[in-house]
């Protein structure tokens, strides 16, 4: 029947000339996704503001001006000032550096660890796989937020320790994902061919197999950025993350809670910023997933074919 054509196996391309690369095809599809592009634009704006903060910011984020506290928004202070007369706009700008840096570094770190552990477990299998998987089980059974709080409380809150502990409590997802991909991929014939050609295990794992698992890893990493930003804000809110005089959005919220009655807007700005950045990252992540996921392609034509078939059946009867 006609419906069958949509599900017919696509023959392997015979490479007459250089085919469109995966990344280029994905970018083409990504560009057509308004939500994803909107997310990208917002994210890039925040990233530029974060990088250029020392040059854009009109004031010193930590300079206190008690004569000018809780000032309403004005041209001197775009978003007003907080309880100690610090310029809120400046603090938001500097806070964005922390949030962006935490998000990106945690995602990179977790992907690195997750890839190595997942690759080793999936490729070698056997007792090594069992041991690594049990370790992951244990890590997943420990409540991550509690462990973060515990470590930062015991060892003292610091920016780099926070990144380290966030990485150490969030690599398990990537590891499981990579292991799953490797379990499927390691039986492929090109792996056998590579082995026969004398490629080392490390080369096969990271040059051949990992490259074929890129798409889900990228999606996972993007979504992890948002999670890390949220966790950072939570930890800083509890007073366990970034310490004054440094500032971050979460820490501004911690400060704002005390002044809820006198200056409620203090809590609004950092929260909206966290929301916007995390939302944009999630849009980007979903956009990348849709752009890279071949199943999505099959989805739309199938619906369209169903429509055609309906029309065809109606016209013939």
């Amino acid at each position, binding site marked *: 029947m006609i419906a069958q054509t949509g599900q017919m196996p696509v023959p392997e391309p015979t490479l007459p000339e250089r085919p469109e690369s995966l990344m280029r095809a994905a970018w083409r599809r990504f560009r057509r996704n308004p939500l994803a592009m909107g997310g990208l634009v917002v994210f890039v704006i925040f990233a530029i503001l974060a990088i250029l903060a020392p040059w854009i910011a009109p004031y010193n984020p930590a300079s206190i001006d008690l004569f000018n506290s809780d000032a309403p928004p004005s041209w001197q202070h775009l978003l007003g000032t907080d309880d100690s007369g610090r310029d809120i706009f400046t603090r938001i700008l500097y806070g964005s550096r922390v949030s962006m840096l935490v998000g990106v570094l945690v995602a990179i770190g977790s992907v690195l660890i997750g890839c190595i552990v997942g690759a080793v477990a999936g490729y070698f299998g056997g007792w090594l796989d069992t041991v690594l998987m049990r370790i992951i089980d*244990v890590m997943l059974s*420990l409540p991550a937020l509690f462990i973060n*709080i515990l470590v930062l409380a015991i060892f003292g809150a610091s920016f780099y320790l926070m990144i380290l502990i966030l990485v150490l409590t969030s690599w398990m997802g990537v590891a499981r994902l990579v292991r799953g991909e490797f379990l499927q991929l390691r039986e492929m014939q090109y792996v056998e061919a590579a082995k026969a050609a004398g490629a080392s295990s490390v080369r096969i794992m990271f040059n051949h197999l990992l490259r074929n698992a890129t798409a889900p890893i990228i999606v996972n990493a993007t979504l992890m950025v948002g999670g890390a930003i949220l966790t950072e804000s939570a930890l800083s809110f*509890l007073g366990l993350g970034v310490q004054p005089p440094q500032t971050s959005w979460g820490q501004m919220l911690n400060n704002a809670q005390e002044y809820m009655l006198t200056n409620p807007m203090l809590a609004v700005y950092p929260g909206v910023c966290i*929301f916007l950045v995390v*939302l944009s990252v*999630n849009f980007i992540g979903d956009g990348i997933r849709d752009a890279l996921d071949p199943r999505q392609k099959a989805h739309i034509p199938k619906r369209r074919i169903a429509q055609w078939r309906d029309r065809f059946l109606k016209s013939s009867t």
Partner: protein
Amino acid sequence: MSAYILRRVLQSVLVLFLVTIATFLLIHAAPGGPTSIFLAPGLSPQAQYIQAHNLGLDRPLPIQYLDWLWRMLHGDFGSTFKNGIPVGSLVWPTLLNTIILMGIAWVVTLLIAIPWGIYNSTREYGISDTVATVISYAGFALPAFWLGLMLQQIFAMRLGWLPLSDMWSRGQEGNLADLARHLVLPVVTLVIGFLAGYVKYSRSSMLEVLGQDYIRTARAKGVPESKVIFRHALRNALIPIITILGLDLPIVVAGAALTETVFNWPGMGRLFVSEATAREYNVLMAITVITAIVVVAGNLIADLLYAVVDPRVRLGEKEGETT
């Protein structure tokens, strides 16, 4: 089936055992560790030695661990450093408070999310579906504690409709109407956070089932649509939903540290946060282990339920390769 259950139970016990080791090592790796906290400052080295000896802190680490584990198995979590209060009497009441808050939030979420997800699966990309998508994007991106702060600002401070924080008003302990009023804001905060995942999940689970051939068969033989949805599709769609519920069970116990802190709810999460800064190691270890037990039990229940409803799981014995 019994072999499968036995294997999963043994596995869970092993994981829990490793969790206790990890927790214990983490605490004892701290600079100074519990030793420095236990010992009164300003003591002479001799006096310190005697005190450490009396507290059993000069014994080898494995012995200390086994001792701790043994006591814990008998329900003795030790006592706090500061006041010598038994940790159990501190932790158990807060666990109950957390379960009250989270349990209600969870049930409310499910009552909204599952019917809504089912409805959306029958009207894909409709208005209701779009609203759910918007809510789920917002729910994933909003810091829950910030949402709590905003709700407090609006409904407690500006409008004065609901109490700002705490579990009971003063002198009203035990009054359920008072409890209900205190529950509203934290529950709404939690529900908005939870709703995102569950609506999405029950929708996609239903959609997957609705695409199956047997649904087409049912429709083809003239089964009314309502019967197709509720008899044929829903029963099968609920299987993965039940699994997710088991996996999310730990959230009921551990997930609310921040919401509890914002609303000053006397739960286990808030206790953990406040005792972490006070470095009450016995309390911290107890809460970590209790949470881990719930996590592992949740996973186990989810797996067993899945095996009950889907025979393929227990027949395809080899684990991990089912993916």
